[in-house]
């Protein structure tokens, strides 16, 4: 019997913590590197590594050795977790900016909020810059200025349906661009 991926999966399912440590030592640097490529900063990438290995240990039966290697499975998990984090941070940042804009008398962001927001913006900015001009415009209007589809349509002089489809296309490309960054990792 060789220490193959199917054997590792069976050992993980049997509660073999030594197998988990072996997998971590072998694959965690790759998982961490993949998360770093998407997120661009270490703390969030460490969270992704933790999420990935907690998922593997909690549900080892979700890994199907017939579908690919354990390394590929963990990298795909890391990609999804990292992209989810970016999306979540994008939404949070947009909500925060709208809130500050609507409450000009408020105290404004704390220094900690400002640092977090700046980090997140850095991480996402590169992906947004890859969008075509017309798509980047609707993303900025919808997410960062909080405009509705109708308002985006009016501001850009396009039909409302076109605004919706451009935004959907832009978000798909944004995700694809983030995925590509990961897939290009050696």
């Amino acid at each position, binding site marked *: *019997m*060789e*220490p193959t991926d199917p*054997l590792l999966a*069976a*050992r993980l*399912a*049997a*509660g*073999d*913590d*030594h*197998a*988990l*440590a072996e997998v*971590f*030592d072998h694959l*965690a*640097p*790759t998982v*961490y*590197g*993949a998360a*770093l*490529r998407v997120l661009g900063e*270490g703390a969030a990438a*460490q969270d992704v*590594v*933790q999420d990935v*290995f*907690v998922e593997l*240990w*909690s*549900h*080892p*039966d979700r890994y199907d050795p017939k579908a690919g290697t354990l390394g590929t499975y963990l990298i795909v998990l890391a990609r999804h977790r990292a992209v989810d984090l970016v999306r979540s941070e994008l939404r949070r940042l947009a909500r925060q900016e709208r809130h500050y804009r609507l409450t000009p008398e408020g105290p404004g962001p704390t220094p900690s909020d400002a640092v977090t927001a700046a980090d997140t913006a850095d991480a996402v900015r590169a992906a947004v810059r890859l969008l075509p001009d017309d798509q980047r415009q609707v993303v900025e209007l919808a997410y960062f200025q909080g405009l509705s589809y109708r308002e985006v349509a009016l501001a850009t002089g396009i039909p409302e349906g076109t605004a919706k489809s451009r935004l959907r296309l832009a978000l798909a490309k944004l995700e694809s661009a983030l995925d590509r960054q990961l897939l290009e*990792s*050696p």
Partner: protein
Amino acid sequence: MTASLPAGLRERVMAATHQVRQAGQSVPEVSEDSPAEAFGHAADAFYQTLCSLTGDDWGLPVLRDLDVQGLVGHLIGVEDDVQRALAGDPGVASTDHVQSTQPAALRQAGRPTAGTREDWRHAADRTLAAVTGGDLDAVVALHGFPLRVRDLLVARTFELWTHENDIRTAAGLSLAAPAPSTLRPMTRLATALLPFGAVFTDLHEPVSVHLVLTGPGGGTWDVAVGDPSPEPAALGIVTDVVGFCRLFSNRIAPADLDVFVTGDPRLARSVLTAATALALD
């Protein structure tokens, strides 16, 4: 792309994983039979196999000098001895497992096979009735082994499953495997008895065995065998849970078991041999 891991990340991740699932627990989780349930399930499976036999099958040679009918007679004798042990009869405490039951085995010759089959079923049912509501932690002595009633029932589960497969092999039927819920108490007992098997095989070298039994009903155990020592040799053994139970029943040789070993292969062979040492015919 790979990246150097930040200091402390490994420890943080390992701590987080063990908060959601303890080491040793298999997933998907399976329910675990009580000792009486395990014995009952093994008895039901054994009976179903007996019911599937043809008339000619009952005359097939199966174990030692016994044909199938004689083996079922041996098990009728075992149930009688178990019931005597449960009743506190010291007469069965140190008798030999085979010699004590041989008269019951020989009595079956020439009987209608249905009679043998039903006598065994009733004997197994009487054993179950005798333990129902009783103290499962009471220690009884049978055939040279003092065992708690709960462990005796699981040991009997092993015996019924093993002889069921002896008969199935003789009759050309495929091997049967216990349900995962029944395997759980079986593996729990087998791993607990492993150090005693080491004593029987004169394995004194201190070994810390990390035993991983894969498949539904399996799990992971750390077992100390050999003489006590602050620095035992570390040994990892990974094998299939049903295969390990067949080994424990002495129905497969250590060399024929598909295993993945980390550590000294010689020690691994010794430990696997120890696992076979407590099996009874």
